[in-house]
């Protein structure tokens, strides 16, 4: 890609080392069918797991170092082992709930996964349910992901007919039911306790922790909640072992990871590579920045993770390395924005999202997101004052750490992190020195979030 201009972010080394493990079946013909899945090695991990006692599966996943792919990076095997000791005589069963409510802005890995390779999630769900002795598993899918719901329901039907699900799975004596459950359009339900309330047929509002779901989750029973990509990582680990898994990635963040590149990138898409791959490498694989316009800022893992700039192109994208550099790995949703994009405009649009999605349970988030939107709107439309900048950061700082769940923190993040790197842009806007930045040429030149944009019309 030597001829691809990327301006200040010139990429010249090798691209990302591509290691398709989770994505390897995605381009196969009729990849979503049981026949295709089996032909490509599917349902081989399941009999192997069923052949050992459940605790050994948990121990294996612990040894693999797999960390949750939903954003927080909590060690998966450890999460499973936090369930109280299994007691067949316990009054309530244990549950596995899969968080497939993908909605974090920038995140777009689980939906293609479920669409292209639903059996991979089903096999992972059966193995995980077995490992934690759960007789029932719910996959909570974002309601808008209709084609995923279809594919998953189809996979459950096929797996049941083949004897991988239902009573006495493959003659092991183990019974499991999986229900594919649709949400109804609420980002907050990606928060695990809000998801549980929603799955119980209530408003999706987060619960106070403790008790954690491992102790009192779905129907107040011991519950494991894992992300789609996490569960899909389980069958390959069962098949090839912990050492194989650890041969990819970094010591503290092992394994293969789906990196989702979007934005002003020549070839956006899903690139699976070992944990610790850098954006520079990924951009090189993706043909660099589009139209030769340099990278201005990016999110390492969705809009809720502090933004990075071109200075951070070489940060290894692993949980610990990104944290050490001042952000969070999140969902490795790499939204890349070029020099034409106004940072205050981008932040205002994100805040419109958080305001809309705030569940209303706690005051800092419910009221605070509304105020942040109003102030940002003033600034972006040229009516802001110098005082607004202080009010904005002060309001954001008063939401962060004071809200009931992480949504409030997430809402403050774009504001606070953009001030860290791009304060001057806010100052230019309130002092009238407005550079002609736009989201894209499509928005019309010389306007900042106005013109054909939706100032004042958005909800």
């Amino acid at each position, binding site marked *: 890609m030597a001829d691809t201009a990327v301006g200040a972010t010139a990429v010249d080394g090798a691209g990302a080392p591509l290691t398709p493990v989770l994505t390897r079946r995605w381009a196969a013909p009729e990849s979503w069918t049981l026949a295709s899945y089996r032909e490509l090695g599917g349902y081989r991990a399941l009999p192997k*797991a069923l052949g050992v006692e459940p605790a050994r599966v948990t121990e294996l996943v612990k040894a693999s170092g797999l960390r949750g792919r939903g954003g927080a990076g909590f060690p998966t095997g450890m999460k499973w082992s936090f369930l109280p000791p299994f007691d067949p005589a316990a009054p309530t069963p244990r549950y596995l709930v899969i968080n497939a409510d993908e909605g974090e802005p920038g995140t777009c890995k689980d939906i293609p996964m479920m669409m292209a390779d639903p059996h991979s999630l089903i096999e992972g769900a059966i193995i995980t349910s077995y490992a934690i002795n759960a007789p029932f598993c719910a996959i909570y899918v974002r309601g808008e992901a209709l084609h995923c719901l279809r594919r998953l329901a189809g996979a459950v039907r096929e797996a049941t007919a083949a004897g991988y699900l239902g009573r006495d799975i493959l003659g092991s004596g183990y019974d499991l039911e999986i229900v594919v459950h649709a949400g109804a359009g609420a980002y907050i339900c990606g928060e695990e306790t809000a998801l549980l309330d929603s799955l119980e047929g209530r408003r999706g509002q987060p619960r106070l922790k403790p008790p954690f779901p491992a102790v009192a989750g779905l129907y107040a029973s011991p519950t494991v909640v894992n992300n789609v990509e996490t569960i899909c990582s389980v069958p390959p680990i069962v098949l090839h072992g912990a050492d194989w898994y650890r041969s990819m990635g970094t010591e503290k963040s092992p394994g293969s990871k789906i990196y989702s590149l979007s934005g002003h990138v020549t070839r956006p898409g899903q690139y699976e590579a070992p944990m610790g791959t850098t954006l520079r490498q990924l951009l090189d694989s993706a043909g660099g920045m589009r139209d030769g316009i340099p990278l201005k800022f990016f999110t390492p893992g969705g809009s809720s993770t502090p933004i990075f700039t071109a200075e951070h192109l070489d940060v290894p994208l692993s949980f610990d390395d990104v944290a050490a550099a001042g952000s969070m790995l999140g969902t490795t949703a790499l939204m890349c924005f070029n020099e034409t994009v106004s940072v205050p405009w981008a932040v205002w649009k994100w805040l419109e999202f958080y305001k809309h999605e705030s569940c209303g349970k706690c005051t800092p988030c419910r009221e605070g997101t509304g105020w942040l939107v109003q102030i940002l709107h003033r600034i972006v439309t040229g009516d802001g004052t110098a005082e607004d900048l202080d009010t904005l950061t002060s309001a954001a700082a008063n939401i962060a750490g004071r809200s009931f769940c992480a949504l409030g923190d997430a809402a403050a993040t774009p504001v606070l992190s953009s001030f860290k790197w791009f304060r001057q842009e806010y100052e230019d806007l309130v002092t009238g020195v407005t550079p002609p930045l736009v989201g894209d040429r499509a928005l019309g030149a010389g306007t900042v979030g106005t013109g054909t944009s939706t100032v004042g019309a958005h909800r």
Partner: protein
Amino acid sequence: MSHTEGRIGVPVFLETGQVFDELTHRRAEEIVGRYPVARSALLPLLHLVQSVEGCVSQPGIDFCAEQLDLTAAEVSAVATFYTMYKRRPCGEHLVSVCTNTLCAALGGDAIYSTLSAHLGVGHEETTGEPAEAGAPGTITLEHAECLAACDLAPVLQVDYEYFDEQTPDSALDLVLALQAGGSPTPTRGPALRNFRTAELEIAGIFPDADERVAGPSLAEPTVRGVRDAERTGQHAPPGDDVPIPPLPEK
């Protein structure tokens, strides 16, 4: 509907006059039977109601309450929380345009304004007379939050099927086709039907499952990484079938 007639405060638009038939009752029972605790069926049941009524109507709320032995207030509290439950009857088609930051920067805002100007409606508004809501060619427009297809931005959905990599022109063509009674093929997903049949599937009832499941899903950006790997001979470290180790001794 007689059981809501004369109720104070029930807006006329909620009185769609539809009766939930035998089939809907059977489907509701089937949905409730999937869960260890009946109330878990409330979200799917509200989708089921929308598949019949085109929105969550007052009779729909009463229907859910009856199925689950809840009060109408408990059901309303849930129905009003979620974006996908519509309080006014949806058009034949629901067009949801992502205007979150990334899509907006790549043209999502322009797509939304183009459609809004063409249809003459704003967020959560429907073309045509209210009495005709759901009639052929009617369209409800909405801003959508991130639709989790950012590598395919800018995106929109019609009846929750993906139309990826749109432009204002392609989106306008799409909407013109919908208004003319066409059934455009999504980028990912089977041929469009309408909002109500989409809601039935979201409720977990899949008529014509085999045909619908096979609708396309493969978008070029989705498989770029895996195809690049294949083309350049890259792969994950080869793995043997390694036995699961015994538990460590305590």
